[in-house]
């Protein structure tokens, strides 16, 4: 048998999760991520794991809280409207300091929106979604192969810092098929002494809880949690630099938009335009330092996103508005074309030249 297999992105997430030691999956079908659940339904019984189609997204995320409390790896997946339904549970998970993986294969919004691909849940993923002061570890794959590696990585980071992680994909990545190799998975061992595994009368009870009776205590929990977030911001940002050595304009794009952008950059380079790209792989923590450094070198930035300009705001913040940031957007289920991206890159050279 060949080492490579041909997989849909949704299947790749499911298989990678299983290989990363996730034996529990709770979900509810929604286009365009249903293949995650369908794949889990077929595979989990064969490996002695648990697949359960919950009665709703709310039930699924709460089942995840239960399993995560025992220190076992657990995953749920949905698409945009379904992730909104999970938001309360995600906040509880963050408040309980529980590691778990939530997958969002985004579709058009707001509301019921549509079933075609989108990246418009960026704010929801990196700036909350649920209530309270918290962050998720958010990864944004750009290929089916990366859906494999980042699924496994997200589980590891979630356990290392005791935070919920989110894999933010989109319908195109979920549905498209690419050849993948399924052997680049490392399962890290992290401390689980907090888990609810039964005391065997040998230790004090562990408590998993997000409710505090005392304001000062709750404040301290938040301060302690933010120390871990600070460590994550220091150690966990991931990004890819493409053709940045001599770049005068820097494209910033994540996920599927970065694939389209690469084609536009190749076309721009063929025209003699010095363009590069910084592709955030982690959306939280956001790769701020590399963008801030780029701001000293380039004339302008171009953000390419399938939303009205959400990551755009983080690029302006990270670069301290030192250089103009131009938007290239499509929404509603539409994908930007390389021609569209190229035209905004050309605008960026004009705008940047005026500075």
């Amino acid at each position, binding site marked *: *048998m*060949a080492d*490579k*297999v*041909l*997989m*849909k992105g949704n*299947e790749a997430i499911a*298989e990678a999760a299983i290989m990363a030691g996730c034996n529990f999956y709770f979900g509810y079908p929604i*286009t*365009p991520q249903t*293949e995650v659940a*369908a*794949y889990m339904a*077929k*595979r989990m019984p064969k490996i002695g794991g648990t697949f359960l189609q919950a009665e709703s997204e709310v039930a699924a995320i709460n089942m995840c809280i239960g399993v995560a409390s025992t220190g076992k790896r657990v995953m749920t997946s949905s698409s945009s409207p379904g992730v909104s339904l999970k938001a309360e549970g995600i906040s509880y998970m963050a408040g309980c300091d529980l590691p778990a993986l939530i997958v969002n294969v985004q579709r*058009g919004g707001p509301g019921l*929106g*549509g*079933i*075609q*691909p989108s990246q418009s849940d960026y704010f929801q993923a990196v700036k909350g979604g649920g209530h309270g002061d918290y962050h998720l570890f958010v990864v944004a794959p750009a290929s089916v192969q990366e859906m494999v590696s980042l699924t496994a990585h997200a589980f590891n980071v979630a356990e290392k810092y005791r935070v919920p992680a989110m894999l933010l994909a989109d*319908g*195109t990545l979920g*549905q*498209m*098929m*690419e*050849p993948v190799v*399924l052997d680049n998975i490392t399962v890290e061992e992290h401390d689980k002494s907090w888990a609810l595994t039964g005391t065997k009368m040998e230790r004090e009870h562990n408590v998993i809880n997000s409710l505090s009776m005392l304001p000062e205590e709750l404040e301290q929990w938040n301060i302690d949690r933010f120390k871990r977030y600070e460590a994550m911001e220091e150690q966990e940002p991931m990004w890819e630099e493409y053709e940045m050595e001599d770049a005068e304009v820097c494209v910033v794009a994540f996920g599927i938009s970065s*694939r*389209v952008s*690469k*084609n536009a950059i*190749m076309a721009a380079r063929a025209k003699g335009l010095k363009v590069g790209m910084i592709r955030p792989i982690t959306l939280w923590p956001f790769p701020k330092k590399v963008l801030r450094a780029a701001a000293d070198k380039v004339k302008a930035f171009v953000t390419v996103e399938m939303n009205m300009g959400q990551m755009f705001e983080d690029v302006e913040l990270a670069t301290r508005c030192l250089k103009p940031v131009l938007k290239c957007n499509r929404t*509603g*289920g539409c*994908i*930007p*074309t*390389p021609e569209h991206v190229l035209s905004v890159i050309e605008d960026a050279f004009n705008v940047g030249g005026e500075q």
Partner: protein
Amino acid sequence: MKNYKRLVLFAGHYGSGKTNIAVNVAIDMKRSGYDVAIADLDIVNPYYRTKDSEDELEAAGVPLISSEYANSNVDVPALPQDMYSLVDNKERYFVIDIGGDDRGALALGRYTPFILEENNYEMLLVINQYRPLTRDLQSTLEVMREMEAAGGIPFTGIVNNSNLGRDTTPEDVIASDAYAREIAAATGLCLRMTTVKEDIAEEVARVIPNVMPLHLQNKRLWNN
């Protein structure tokens, strides 16, 4: 692949390549002089559908019967009224693209009694050894039986479409021939053809019989 029955049905596991094959076979039939239409019975796949090939089919003169919601933002598993023409209009040949797995084959059931009664069909199982859930005989037979149970029509032949997408090498296809023959032997079904993307088809055809070159539908906006 020649000597077609009036109804040529393609079913298989998710992502086995049914839609691409159906489009290629329909266009090939048309060029061979058949009065043929293509029917998209897929009610499970939201993207990458027969409708993506609308322009190519129209240029070849192959009518497409498809859900009016295909490729839209609407998630309704509806089939159009004129889908009945595939059992009503016996003057015309039809290539039928059935949705993946047993869930996809379920939509076929509405037409099954008419198809069995007329008994002028071939039901082809599309297989791809490089898909993770159909990598060997046992798992492929499992998917096949689920589809037969859901659709109610027994398979009559096999199409080996083993591939790794754009990365497929002639060796990948040639190596899958043993798998295809094993399934044919175990089921008693004939290996109807091996479908191969057109740029490597000639090389594969030197080693394997009954190779059909496939023109791939590719609407992607990137090539990196």
